[in-house]
């Protein structure tokens, strides 16, 4: 009964308010057209003053667009809608602002790196090459990066995955809380402190001034372990409880359930996490400057004997030498490193997507 009393007024009884309702919006295509228009006008004005630059153009276009759309919206749609339009413009702007350094960085690395990036650069070392000579390459650094990161992975993955298994499948009470907490703490260790830790350890074991690849690998493992634990833990938690229970119901002991059911189910996720962890540490420079040395020039496959060059430290040491050829080498090595990292990053996503367990 009360429903009928609150009926809206019949249409047509208030012609004035009706027109207000229908006029209160900018056309749907207006923002896009305005953006294109302001981009063109700003480009024209800048060109007229012969000072066209991508940064100035993007910035002025954004400002012009924002000012015009907010003014138009205030006129047509009122204050609240105008505020909404302003925030929309700012939020889009934030994203584009973040993309600017990414684009600039990737473009520069590709542009400057290609000057020297060649099969020759990838397959020769710096052995017998003077810093300013127009020769030499990164083969020894690639070898070092592979060896050091490989050894770090071999140490970090078993510890990390087993700890995750412990946290998800076994741990209860105090110890679980303590380990979870300290894994968090470990995530926050600055990379240079991990390097100093190995320096301190090596000083006690072998005396001062000893640097080799193994020391670098240990410092990277310290950085890698918490990342592996975190990601593996997440993946193991995604494994449906039903699978475990089905296995127990068949009389399979717990450890075989973990090895044969839980780990294979989450294998894709675990691999993704591990690859992202590798991608994270493969570019670490600071700990390796301290532990693996920064002056090796020849190919060294032995992790336990002598300094070991690697890509990040190569970039840094060439940068510090500071000649034209050195800068070229640094950029080309940066291109190599970025390609490796991107490849790992990309593969990790592909594996994660292709082999993800069907949860439904």
């Amino acid at each position, binding site marked *: 009964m009360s429903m009928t009393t609150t009926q809206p007024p019949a249409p047509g009884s208030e012609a004035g308010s009706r027109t207000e309702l229908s006029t209160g919006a900018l056309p749907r295509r207006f923002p896009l057209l305005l953006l294109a228009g302001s981009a063109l006008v700003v480009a024209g004005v800048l060109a007229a003053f012969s000072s066209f630059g991508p940064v100035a153009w993007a910035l002025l276009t954004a400002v012009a667009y924002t000012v015009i759309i907010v003014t138009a919206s205030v006129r047509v749609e009122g204050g609240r809608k105008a505020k909404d339009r302003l925030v929309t413009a700012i939020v889009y702007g934030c994203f584009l602002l*973040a993309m600017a350094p990414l684009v600039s960085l990737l473009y520069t690395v590709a542009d400057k790196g290609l000057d020297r990036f060649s099969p020759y650069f990838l397959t020769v070392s710096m052995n017998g090459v003077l810093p300013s000579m127009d020769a030499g390459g990164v083969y020894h650094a690639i070898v070092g990066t592979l060896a050091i990161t490989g050894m770090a992975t071999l140490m970090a993955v078993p510890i990390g995955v087993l700890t995750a298994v412990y946290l998800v499948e076994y741990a209860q009470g105090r110890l679980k809380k303590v380990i979870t907490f300290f894994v968090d703490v470990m995530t926050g260790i600055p990379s240079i402190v991990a390097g100093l830790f190995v320096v301190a350890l090596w000083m006690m074991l072998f005396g001062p001034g000893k640097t080799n690849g193994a020391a670098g690998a240990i410092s990277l493992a310290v950085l890698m372990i918490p990342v592996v634990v975190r990601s593996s833990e997440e993946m193991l938690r995604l494994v449906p409880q039903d699978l475990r229970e089905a296995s*127990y119901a068949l009389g399979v002991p717990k450890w075989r359930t973990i090895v044969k059911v839980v780990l294979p189910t989450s294998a894709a996720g675990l691999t993704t996490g591990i690859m992202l962890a590798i991608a994270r540490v493969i570019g670490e420079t600071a700990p390796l400057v301290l532990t693996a040395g920064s002056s090796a020039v020849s190919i060294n496959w032995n992790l336990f004997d002598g300094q070991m060059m690697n890509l990040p430290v190569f970039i840094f040491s060439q940068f510090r030498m500071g000649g034209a050829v050195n800068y070229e080498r640094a*950029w080309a090595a940066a291109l190599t490193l970025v390609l490796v990292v991107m490849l790992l990053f990309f593969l990790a996503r592909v594996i994660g997507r292709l082999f993800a367990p069907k949860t439904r």
Partner: protein
Amino acid sequence: MTTTDSPKAAPPPAGKRRIGDVVFAGLARGSGILILLILAGVAAFLLVQAWPSLMANTSNFLTDQSWDANSRENPSFGVAALAFGTVLAATIALALATPVAIGIALFIVYYAPRRLAATLGYLVDLLAAIPSVVYGLWGMMILAPKLVPVYEGMTRYLGWIPLFAGPASTSARTLLTAGIVLAVMILPIITAMSRDVFQQVPQGHREAALAMGATRWEMIRLAVLPFGKSGIVGGAMLGMGRALGETMAVAMILSPSLAISFDLLQSGNQTIAAHIALQYPEATGYGVSALIAAGLVLFAITLAVNMGARYVVARGNKESA
């Protein structure tokens, strides 16, 4: 029929199966404990190796600003200027990155076209994948030269603000440049944390706001931001933890000198991490030990910030649960 025992199955019959279980459980628990040992080792070894230089130090380690540790006799060094530079650089990075990161997170969760959102998020994550040494190279060779005229303009028109007092550095290798690069590096962390909480905002809250006639921004202000507050704060503090410990980018960009100065546009600051990386190759005498002591200070600062971040996030989770 008479199985009124506990619903839990009887322990499996003794034999090989249990040995496997014991061994595997032992391995898993062992690696958990190994992590604790490694962490204890980090703290212990650093302390042991830092001790000799701290004992030999002739000035106050915490308040002295100079660094003269490379001798066997009467080393005199302190971490005050370095700690100041570290915190200031991280604060600049945080101040620049947090608003932008919130904007990006909002963009990805609420503004971007649904189908593109995942890909755009992936692009932001790419920022985290780029090695810091490459950031350093880029910041020093590309960004800094572009900032020189900007800094000159800032000293001319904003010079009355103490932070921007002139004369601007002619190479732009200053703490502000380092702060900008650090801000780019910590963007993905803050964005990821904010995205996570924004995605957890209950649909009911959002739809209630929209149903009341709220615009998209009003919905965000009323429903999303209050809910996501702790996540944003936690993410910002995690980002700060990262910025505090970042080494290479800062080491390559700053032209170092040990001073306590708020002049962001002049060279004259240094951070702990960058100082260690640059000084280590030339360290003699008590040098290495003193650098390890500085590393301990950095460890303590980052630890405090990170634990604060975890606390904030955990408290937020409890409130929203």
